[in-house]
């Protein structure tokens, strides 16, 4: 019969907020801009190449995987770009491009698409990529190009942490991964995301706060050094806050942030590895389903009647 459609019927509500997934992801890319630019400023063309290679590979891998599965290609939501960019920012500037490409493929394929794509992964894809590279090519992944500092390692690997000026740490004039060096650029982006409401302040607050408190008592260097050194800032603002791989409950986010902080200090101070941001977040990612399950907020009116 003829189609006489006139009105639309649908369940309520009939108005929606303007937010969309791609919108959020695009804003994350925006927030990463200062860090990206700083990285290119400090490390030059090699950084640029890594960033481009990772981003393109990530997006291409996502498209390819979805094509293979015969499901709609959703690279337009910017989420693959975010993963590629974040991965690039955690790599050492001198890393061979092919390794970065491998990492990017792994990040998207193994970190995200095998679970069904955006929203279903347990582990932060960028960190999966980095962890894979770190486990595969430990030497290449821990060799740092120097700017004008004499230390041969990241600040955390340095023999005498206090020797590094905090100002340099803050501005990023130290060795390290692309996006880890300049705390000020990261904080700028992080504040933007906080302002826009795209990340929950509880996670970075729990993470950074715990690290600050614990390093006051244990470890060398003191809290300010530990906060600024290594990938903590990047991790706290951009990795640990990844919506997909963090708890959805408020209490859960506190637990997540504090858990990351505790693990980080354990790994940095007692562990065999110089840096633990990556692992602290990945480890806590595993706990997310359990945290979510057991931190249900008290539903409105949930009391014992007669109690």
């Amino acid at each position, binding site marked *: 019969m003829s189609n006489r459609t006139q009105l639309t019927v649908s369940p309520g509500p009939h108005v929606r907020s303007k937010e969309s997934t791609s919108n959020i992801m695009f804003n994350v890319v925006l927030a990463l801009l200062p860090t990206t630019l700083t990285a290119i400023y400090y490390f030059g063309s090699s950084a640029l190449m890594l960033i481009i290679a990772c981003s393109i590979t990530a997006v291409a891998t996502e498209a390819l995987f979805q094509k293979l599965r015969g499901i709609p290609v959703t690279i337009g939501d910017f989420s693959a770009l975010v993963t590629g960019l974040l991965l690039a920012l955690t790599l050492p500037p001198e890393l061979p491009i092919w390794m970065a490409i491998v990492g990017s493929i792994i990040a998207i394929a193994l970190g995200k698409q095998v679970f069904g794509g955006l929203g279903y992964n347990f582990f932060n894809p960028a960190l999966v990529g980095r962890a894979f590279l770190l486990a595969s090519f*430990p*030497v290449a992944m*821990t060799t740092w190009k120097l700017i004008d500092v004499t230390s041969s390692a990241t600040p955390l690997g340095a023999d005498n942490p206090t020797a590094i000026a905090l100002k340099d740490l803050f501005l990023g004039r130290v060795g390290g991964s692309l996006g880890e060096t300049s705390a000020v650029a990261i904080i700028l982006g992080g504040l933007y995301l906080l302002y826009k409401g795209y990340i929950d302040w509880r996670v970075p607050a729990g993470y950074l706060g715990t690290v600050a408190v614990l390093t006051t008592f244990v470890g060398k260097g003191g809290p300010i050094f530990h906060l600024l050194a290594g990938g903590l800032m990047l991790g706290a603002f951009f990795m640990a806050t990844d919506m997909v791989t963090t708890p959805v409950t408020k209490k859960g986010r506190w637990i997540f942030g504090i858990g990351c902080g505790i693990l980080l200090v354990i790994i940095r101070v007692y562990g065999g590895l110089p840096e633990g941001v990556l692992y602290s977040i990945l480890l806590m990612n595993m706990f997310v389903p359990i945290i979510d399950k057991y931190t249900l907020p008290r539903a409105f009116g949930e009391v014992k009647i007669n109690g």
Partner: protein
Amino acid sequence: MGKEKIDIKLIVVLTSIMIISALVLSLVYQATTPLINEHAAQAKKEAILDVLPGAVKYEKLEKGGLELYQGLDEAGSPVGIAFQHEGNGFQGTIILMIGMDVENQKLLKVKILDQLDTPGLGARMAEEEFKGQFQGKSFSDNFVAKEDVDAIAGATISSQAVSNILKDAIATVEQAYSGGE
């Protein structure tokens, strides 16, 4: 069902299986033990000679309750002592054969007899690049990875573990020498 009698058959069967098993295994054990011991002895000999450059034979030496092996060169003069020592590694026990020159207070050579550490990382302690650096190291050194010992990339713990075992071995041997003399 009421009361049932305990089934004697159960006991008989399981006991006889155990007995047969014990019998068979005793035979296997007897047949293989000499070979296994031979392998072990051979391996030990190789290890001892390996860590004592210049030695062609060795003799056992008791000192302060320790079992030491005195290496002798072709001329029959001692080149150093070998000492087997073990300690905790990254994943499990690491067993080292350590050649040392007690007179000059330095290490001669180190051989990894057994370790369970991560293949490709900690397991690279067996490579010359790592263990070679201990050659000639003084007893009084600190043996701290990343300071006076170059750690294997990505395996600081394994590196430190080996260093610790060495340090411990030195202390043990020195103790034996000082106590023994």
